[in-house]
């Protein structure tokens, strides 16, 4: 939330907003002072939210694609409320493309409170390559760790190999000991090249020529790559 943004709103709206946040106002408060006050409140709230393991923070922050922070939702104060979390420990990973996946997680409140109280706890994600392996916790082909904070709840993970299988673990280390919180679903990254496998009944023709023609670099010149989505065009765009 920027000063300009607040200044662009009429005084009445700023007053109403402040009242909704239970901020006591002097009847005679001028706009400049009110803007100062609200900016202070925003900062405080943003800090407070950083302390809490809340998905709502991320939700609010991500609503504004131009990057303008509005932790109290001044502009859209009548959005219906949705759950901040579901009070359970879970970890879900969704492949995004050959070398990226998106993970989101939640730690159940009791556990989260316990972890928050403990200064020695270090939370992390461990990414296991389990391609061709039935994972038993110790037999991944390789793994790496991503330290995360208690206030984190999502991560975009860069994976080393396309066309592979992975599994994620959310765990914490304390005094040298590891404690597994939860394991994710197994997920696969798609290939980014032709398969090595050839079906003897359907051998390729003319080497790779047909395959090369099939790709023709057209895949990136199509809907979405900078051009406007055909059916959903903003009726207010000028």
């Amino acid at each position: 939330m920027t000063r300009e943004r607040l200044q662009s709103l009429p005084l009445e709206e700023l007053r109403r907003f402040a009242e909704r946040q239970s901020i006591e106002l002097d009847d005679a408060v001028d706009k400049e002072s009110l803007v100062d006050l609200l900016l202070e409140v925003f900062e405080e709230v943003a800090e407070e939210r950083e302390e809490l393991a809340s998905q709502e923070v991320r939700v609010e922050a991500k609503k504004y694609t131009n990057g303008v922070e509005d932790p109290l939702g001044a502009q859209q104060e009548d959005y219906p409320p949705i759950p901040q979390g579901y009070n359970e420990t879970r970890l879900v990973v969704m492949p995004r493309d050959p070398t990226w996946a998106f993970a989101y997680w939640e730690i159940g409140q009791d556990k989260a409170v316990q972890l928050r109280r403990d200064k020695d706890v270090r939370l992390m994600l461990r990414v296991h390559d389990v391609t061709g392996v039935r994972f038993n916790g110790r037999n991944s082909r390789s793994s790496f760790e991503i330290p995360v904070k208690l206030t984190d709840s999502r991560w975009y993970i860069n994976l080393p190999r396309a066309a592979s299988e992975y599994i994620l673990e959310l765990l914490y280390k304390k005094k040298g000991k590891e404690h597994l919180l939860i394991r994710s679903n197994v997920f696969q990254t798609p290939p980014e090249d032709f398969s090595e496998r050839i079906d003897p009944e359907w051998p390729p023709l003319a080497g790779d020529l047909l395959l090369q023609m099939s790709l023709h670099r057209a895949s990136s010149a199509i809907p979405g790559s900078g051009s406007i989505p055909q059916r959903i065009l903003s009726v207010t765009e000028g």
Partner: protein
Amino acid sequence: MAKAYLALVLHAHLPFVRHPEYPRFLEETWLFEGISETYLPLLRVFEGLAERGVRFRLTLSVSPTLAEMLRDPLLQGRYIEHLKRTIELAHKEAERTRGQPEFHKLALMYLALFERNLEDYTERYASDLLGAFRRLRDQGLIELITTGATHAFLPVLKDYPAGVEAQIRVAVDYHTEIFGSRPKGFWLPECGYYPGLEELLERHGLGYFFVDSHGIAYADTRPRYGVYAPLVCPNGVAAFGRDPEAARAVWSQDEGYPGDVAYREFYRDIGFDLPLDYIRPYILEGDVRVNTGLKYHAITGRGEHKVPYNRDEALKRVREHADNFLYRQRKQVERLERLMDRPPLIVAPFDAELFGHWWFEGPEWLEALIGRMHSDATWLEMVTPEDYLKRHEKNQRATPAFSSWGDKGYAAVWLDSSNDWIYPHIHKAIERMGELARRFATCDGMRRRVLNQAAREVLLMQSSDWAFIMKTGTTVPYAVRRVREHIASFNRIYNDLLANAVDLEWIGKLEKRNNLFQDIDYRCFA
């Protein structure tokens, strides 16, 4: 004997947008523009060709949410009102431009077009556009298929298969009900495919789907024919891959036909160009400028300067572009037939709304193209996927790769920092809906109503459109509001049901607003 096949696929979709609680609503104009600029013009093209004895074969996917809106009496009435307002504006424009011959001609063109739309919509079709598509289907000219119930991008629901199952099942049941026969194929929303999805398609009798080129090229076994023949998954469902050449000819931002300088410029609409006082009655309250559909300029070039649109020039280009498409395909086919031991199949799928709405001259291009194929480009035969499978029963077995036709070819559009916050809620909702469906597997009528409405809310939150809008930044607040509303409504129903304290009046209101899929059975989530 044709040298090659062309499978033209049009995918018509709009998300469910219906706001009876307001007298007019901005986002409802997506539907009105779709009808005026795409669906009516396409119907005129198809019927015109049929009447002239030009046989053609193409595949048309009509999304369940679009179909629901086309059938909805409230929206039908609002569309007619919208048309009448636009006709009134066109009359005023005809007056205003009397002294400017180039613009006056165009104002008259639009007036004629809008009046034609009104006449066709109310008299020829009696507000029933789906009936018109049905008739074309009955004549053997178009094959009607379906897509996800609310057009969810399925790869992001992969680990919640009940959600995918519901998207398919509700769509298939609905399509069967309104078109009178089961769909044989499925348009994967955004061509979003993941290995294993074919299992769920097969369960509902669906025989084929479409993927982007790399979905075929990167299949788990090298495809002998690349995208120029389908692959069949181990379970028998066929996958048809998009031809990049056909895609490039039309979609490419730099070289695609729609960008030709003679074609009509989308962004110069009088809703934005003319003074507010004049345009006010035709835009919305709060002086929010909107598109009116009256656009007088040609693309002209990259800069700001735009010349008046010249319809004759544009139509000339249309014919040239139809010829060009055939010329390029001919070159491609000549290469392919030297390499292949069967006629190559060119799969050319497009969003229907590209034709007419974005590319004003699009429907005329289709008409010219089809006309040419019929009259002298007989080396290229129009087929549907089913036609192909009947003629070529033996096809290579392989599983396509996870892919989509979205920007960058995978899930990046729908899995982005702008929209990833929705998935924890959507996944949870699918889980909870499953819980409800199993817990209340049998129940009384009242509870069934509530559970069915819960199912509707779960489906509605999943529309790929919302995440897409959030990523591409058009009407973001609306998309965010929609997702949050459906999440909030669903969770309220969930909590109320478990506490045995449902507010039936509130449910009734929700039912009246989000009234799609009358016959939905919540147990599709079980």
